[in-house]
């Protein structure tokens, strides 16, 4: 299973992403570059996630992104 926090750490290089409940969007941690990298890397890892079809609230925290990954993995 892909670890969301590890992936976010690699992309954002910000230790705050190690906190499950860290707010990612308003804080600027998940900016447009990080957003692009996140979906690109998930695609490279074989997960097909379409940004226009997902529950956007899941992008707000590392825990939410892990949930996103878990759901996509089960498909």
């Amino acid at each position, binding site marked *: 299973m892909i670890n969301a926090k590890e992936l976010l750490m690699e992309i954002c290089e910000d230790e705050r992403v190690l906190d499950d409940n860290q707010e990612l969007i308003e804080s600027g941690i998940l900016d*447009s570059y990080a*957003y*692009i*990298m996140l979906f690109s890397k998930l695609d490279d890892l074989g997960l097909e996630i*379409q*940004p*226009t*079809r997902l529950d956007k609230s899941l992008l707000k925290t590392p825990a939410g992104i892990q949930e996103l990954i878990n759901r996509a993995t089960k498909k």
Partner: protein
Amino acid sequence: MIDIAKEILKFEDSDNNCYVNEENKITYKELIRKAREYASYLKDGNTPVIIYGHKSVDMLVSIISCVLAKRCYVPVDTFMPLKRLSQIIEETKASIIINNSENKIDNSIKLDELSINSDIDKLYKDICYIIFTSGSSGKQKGALLKRKNLNNFTDYMIKFNSKYKGSNVLNTASFSFDLSVADIYFTLCTGGTLYSYNDSNDLDYAFKFIKKNNIEYIVATPTYMKMLILDKDFCEKNFPSLKCIYFCGEVLSCNLTDKIFDRFPKIEIINAYGPTEACCAVSMINVNKKYNDPLPVGIMNNLATKVEIVDDEIILSGDSIFHGYINKECTDGVYKTGDIGYIKDGLLYCIGRKDLQIKYKGYRIELSDIENNLKKCDGVVDSVVIVKKSEDTVKYIKAFVVTNKKDFDEEQIKKELKDYLPQYMIPKIIKKIDEIPVTDNNKIDRRALEDD
């Protein structure tokens, strides 16, 4: 060479929409009627008119009013901090500030409050608009673009894109960035319809807007397209109207063009190059699958202005070259871009910078602009700003500061910086260091900080 005012006026009887955004729209007939009226108030003056706002219909009406009045305009987006706006007002000595936003701006008026102004400063007589760009000193630079520059560029743009005249064009850049010059004037001078929406980060909304309005031609930075292409629904089957994407403002890579061609096999991609100082773009080329990285940015026998390479640097001259900066005229008609480039097999290539200027999310940024504004923050004694890159793309901006404050508060510094810099220039990470590292030659050792 065309005259953009005359080209736009050709459509004054047209009931077709010329500009559509999320809240409103306006036909050519209505735009020109209003712009003529406001132009009558503006025509006797020569000081620049600051047009403050985001993407409202009144922004476009204000711009075209100035074009018809042959009055210099300065587009300023609402994302610019008020201190930067104050600096622009001071530098331009603008006597009119048209406020097309809900923000309260001192000494400004609403568009419909315009009345006859009788100042007669001749300095800006031939200047069409002023675009402010990041300045290495920490103060923005106002680039003065002449009507002749805009006529020359628009003529070139129309000829290069003649098959797309009259298209539904998507504007993605703020009106205070010169990328928008390509979409505004190409559309309005060919009777097309310009479309624009506010929030460029909402992919859902973007898809619906592009689809609903049958967008045929998109003017964008590669960063914008990287967002759209993330979703596999962005493809020819779902967007059959889309025929051409015009890129400028950032390096375009095969990685992105390959993905676009996979989704849209018949699409045309144009890669354009040019600094603000040479009116939007000086060169363009249709990029197809035969090219590898680095992609060419132009064809030497099809340019808007003269382009030469001197000591690896791209040097521009001719009809596209600006008048100069405010208080600093460009007297020899030559502009040294600072871009490193070369010519090969009749094609122009641009491969980097000689200095500390970067492109980040399509925005042009002088790193020392950020450094100098950091030093305005409470307790910051010295600063160095670097970028973290991934395969030649800037990932984010990182700052190192030397501070005389015992308690270092990164968020507090970021908050203070927002008074001086737009959001996209605020470093993602600000780290405290005891001293700035230097090399054996006593220069700032940026490499050491990049490895941090």
